């Protein structure tokens, strides 16, 4: 298996059996983000305590890139502080996936990060 095939396998595993998939009842914050160009959707649910992400779940519809990225991202930020989550740069997500994406699929990859950061902002945890 080439390196690229291996990374593809990882992404597809996340896509086929997404981690942290589902809904949280009574979350601290919740937000649905939508990419009008392709219709991909990611909904983020958060429980935040002491500026730490105690629990994160997502639900969604979309391609392997947007949904796999959501699964990987929720793994990544669970337990992190909100400041750490807010400072994740788009490049980190692209690196995390590690596949040549091209501009439109890059948007898919970044949809979950956008959803998460918007969700945190909405809950008042945005940087000032």
């Amino acid at each position, binding site marked *: 298996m080439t390196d690229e095939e291996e990374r593809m396998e990882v992404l597809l595993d996340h896509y086929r*059996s997404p981690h942290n998939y589902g809904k949280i009842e009574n979350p601290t914050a919740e937000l649905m983000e939508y990419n009008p160009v392709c219709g991909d*959707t990611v*909904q983020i649910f958060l429980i935040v305590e002491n500026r730490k992400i105690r629990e994160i779940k997502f*639900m969604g519809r979309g391609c392997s890139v947007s949904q796999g990225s959501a699964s990987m991202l929720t793994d990544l930020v669970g337990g992190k502080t909100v400041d750490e989550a807010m400072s994740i740069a788009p490049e980190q997500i692209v690196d995390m996936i590690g596949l040549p994406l091209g501009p439109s*699929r890059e948007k898919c990859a970044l949809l979950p990060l956008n959803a998460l950061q918007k969700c945190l902002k909405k809950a008042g945890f945005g940087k000032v």
Partner: protein
Amino acid sequence: MPFWERIKEDFPIFHNLGENFTYLDSAATSQKPYSVINALSDFYSRHNSNVHRGIYRLSEEATDLYGRSRENVSRFIGSSDPRQIVFVRNTTEALNLLAYSLGHDLVEGDEILLTIMEHHSNIVPWQFLQEKGVRIKYADIREDGTLDMDDLASKISPRTKIVSVTHVSNVLGTINPVAEIGRIAHDNGSIFIVDGAQSVPHMPVDVGRIGCDFMAFSGHKMLGPTGIGCLYGRIDLLEKMRPFMGGGEMIREVYTDHSTWADVPEKFEAGTPDIAGAIGLSAAVDYLRNLGMENVRDHGRELMRITFSLESEAGIPGLISYGPRNPDIRGPVYAFNIGSIHPMSVEESLADRGVGLGTVVHPHDVASTLDGKGVAVRSGHHCAMPLTHRINAVATSRASYYIYNTPEDVRRLFHSLEHTVKVYSR
């Protein structure tokens, strides 16, 4: 009969992108033959100047070329008078022109009848009229992807001022019985508009035989340049209509307090037109006429036949395809899915288990994987969201064919689809 296998040689892009490039997105835009590209270069290199109002020779040449392009397009769609052709940017502008100009006279309670398979271009301009109380109705489709004519007949009413219908669906491929719809519309006293974006490139179209009052189509989908499209309109109707945009060329006289309009079609062509675009479109029309539109239609039908037969042969798990199975009422458009992904519903969301299960491949992943194999298809709602929702899909993948596509291209599509399913079911 044209040598279909050699047509790619007339298109520089196939030469430049090589053997492994399989272009299956002609419903979005077609590729261009040398003759069209050269017509543009030739105009800019030998005849370029502004049209109308110039009395030096070069300007008369440009005016003449522009006028001949209009005549050529007019003949191509069976219009009896070149003044019935208004040059616009694309189908979308043609339909907006109608919505603004005809829409001006509509009043609260008037109705517009569309179908659920319309492209956004034939929906959104009419929705603008909702703010003054105009109502839009949509004729539904049947299970087999054809238009439900009973539903259409039941939705027409004395208040229906306009019936506007696509000739060929850009997703289902359905060829609608436009002459029949025209009779229903006219019997009802309604104006009848046909969106010809997917028909004029692909089959013989005769506006007289269809009996439509207006038809809109785009040059870029029929081998022509981007930036040019046409509105065909019955001369008596165009003459009565108010202009759409104001400015140079479309006026007779301008005073500080009022203006008077030029004759049709100039009345609807404000400002410097896309002169080179019209000339390029005329070259595209020449190319198509030379192939013969009956032949073009046969070629498209043949590719659809091959598509259906390879589809059953391949037996791709989970493959769903949309639209009528009868190639006689079907344009060369093939929309499909691997597994069905319904739109996410907030109510069901507790029971939701995600989509990455079973033989379901999201249309994006399909297009992306096919692209990796050199096969260019589009995925998404294809500017027909109401239809996409109607067939209960988040999106579809779509392969669409044109004159340069071959049976080999269709085989590549299915080979690559088999590969795709393998990748996603590992």
